[in-house]
């Protein structure tokens, strides 16, 4: 970040007032950059280890896993993955999870966009109370709602459907989406709204044509968080499903049978749950870098 030594004025200024020469300083900067790279490398290495171990196990047969300790697979086998992709009760778990996550993202973003706009642009009766109440839902532990949810969705006939899980995850995802989006929207100057109205745009047209493109990266970051929290949540998803809409996380528990745990398949299934996440981060990485904090600085 420190680019000043390349600018002429800075060079002169620093040369006059500091005892170190620019060359010395550049050397010191290079050394500190190297040190931070090493530290980061160490962190990433330690962080990756458990995941590496999972991948390592997913490529071994159970006898090799339980046999001697090896740091990498001796005879690479893809049997564990083949077992998952050829068994509909396995791969349907991924389909179910993705279905309810997608539904949840769609519902949440549709209701959160107008609501966040209202919070960022207008004051209205009870707005502050409403905002805090929304945040309290973010704090509500799913365990508190387990039983009532089960009964509620059972009585309206939504039990064991994807939409039930999608709706249940709205509990924490809608407040989060409004919170993030409100920050991004507040960073867009109000004058843009006013100019658009003067130019004869109606509110819906302005919102879709002008406003939404302006907060694109905010929506990207929001979608990332919605995906993340819906994809990883399992307590509610497990309670609200039985067979037809079971998330993959629950199906993984089947690997433990009377004859012991099928470690290889468990590891392979675990590896596969990470892949959708990697894809999502890959697509929104620039938005994340651009700033979650954009509206809140």
């Amino acid at each position, binding site marked *: 970040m*420190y680019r000043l030594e390349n600018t002429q004025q800075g060079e002169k200024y620093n040369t006059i007032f500091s005892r170190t020469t620019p060359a010395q300083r550049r050397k010191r900067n290079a050394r500190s950059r190297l040190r931070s790279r090493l530290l980061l490398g160490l962190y990433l290495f330690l962080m*990756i280890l458990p*995941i590496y171990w999972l991948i390592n196990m997913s490529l071994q047969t159970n006898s090799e896993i339980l046999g001697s300790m090896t740091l990498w697979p001796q005879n690479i086998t893809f049997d564990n993955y083949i077992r998952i992709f050829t068994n509909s009760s396995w791969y349907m778990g991924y389909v179910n999870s993705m279905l309810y996550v997608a539904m949840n993202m769609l519902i949440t973003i549709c209701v959160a966009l107008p609501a966040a706009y209202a919070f960022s642009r207008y004051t209205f009766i009870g707005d502050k109370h409403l905002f805090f109440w929304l945040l309290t839902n*973010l704090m509500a532990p799913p365990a508190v*709602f387990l039983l009532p949810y089960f009964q509620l969705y059972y009585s309206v006939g939504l039990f064991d459907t994807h939409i039930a899980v999608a709706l249940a995850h709205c509990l924490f995802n809608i407040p989060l989406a409004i919170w993030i989006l409100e920050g991004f929207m507040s960073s867009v100057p109000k004058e843009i709204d006013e100019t658009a109205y003067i130019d004869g745009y109606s509110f819906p047209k302005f919102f879709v044509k002008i406003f939404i493109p302006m907060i694109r990266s905010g929506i990207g970051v929001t979608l990332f968080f919605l995906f993340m929290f819906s994809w990883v949540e399992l307590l509610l998803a497990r309670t609200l499903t039985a067979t037809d809409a079971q998330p993959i996380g629950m199906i*993984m528990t089947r690997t433990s049978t009377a004859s012991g745990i099928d*470690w290889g398949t468990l590891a392979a299934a675990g590896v596969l749950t990470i892949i959708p996440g990697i894809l999502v981060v890959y697509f929104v990485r620039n938005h994340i870098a651009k700033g979650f*904090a954009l509206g809140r600085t």
Partner: protein
Amino acid sequence: MNNKVRNNRAWLLVLPMLVLVAFSAIIPLMTVVNYSVQDVLGPNARFFTGTEWFQTMLNDSALRAAFIRQIIFSLTILAIQVPLGIAIALIMPKRGWQASAVLILITLPLLIPWNVVGSIWQIFTRGDIGLMGWGLRELGINYNITRNAGDAWATIILMDVWHWTPLVAMLCYSGLRSIPEAYYQAARIDRASKWAVFRYIQLPKLTNVLVIAVLLRFMHSFMIYAEPFVLTGGGPGSSTTFLSQSLATMAIGQQDLGPSAAFSIIYFLVILLVSWVFYTTIMHMQKDKNPHGGA
């Protein structure tokens, strides 16, 4: 906030959200309140019990122990994750393919379903097939999470740090990225030390994202359920049984509707209170620092 327009028709924009959240928050909460004052013996056999369940729950020593355990756990992980997250954000590369690559790698643990996180660590820490358990044993350290409560605690904290520090790091990273280059140049001209740059430029600019990070981490640490459940099952004994797990066992496992409902409400109120205190103090701190709003 800057000159917002007063307009009560804005309620129309909030309405769809309100209907949905009410469906997923208010109706279930009412049911919980309803249960908490009744003794449910069967579909048509319910008796009003008043505050009896609340008294039982408040006097339950196991729950009190779980609560204290929860508080210690939450404070510990906050004390580790926040500084560590800031440190990682500071040393992350700023641009180019390296920045993207590090960002993707760092967010990996966040995108793993919670019980899979438990499974990964269960595998990783096992003495016979796990790298960490095996490594520690080779080093001559007696490590066993199913027998030794201390080991179980250390492992759960390590797992949580592994799992959630990326969130703090990611938020701080995006906060750092939003600091204009001119600030650093000014600091350069003043010959500010690295520490001064951090203390007077980076840290104040990070306050906002840190509020989000601390609040999210605090709330989620209270909800922690799947990871320790898979890893240790709450054991050995009840040394790693946290609040959510006690609640889930009571409500689903034992079907004690009344007590678990009363417990839920107490639980909810505690979280509400703590979060409210957190939220308002932080907001006040920010207001004092910038009396005209905005940093």
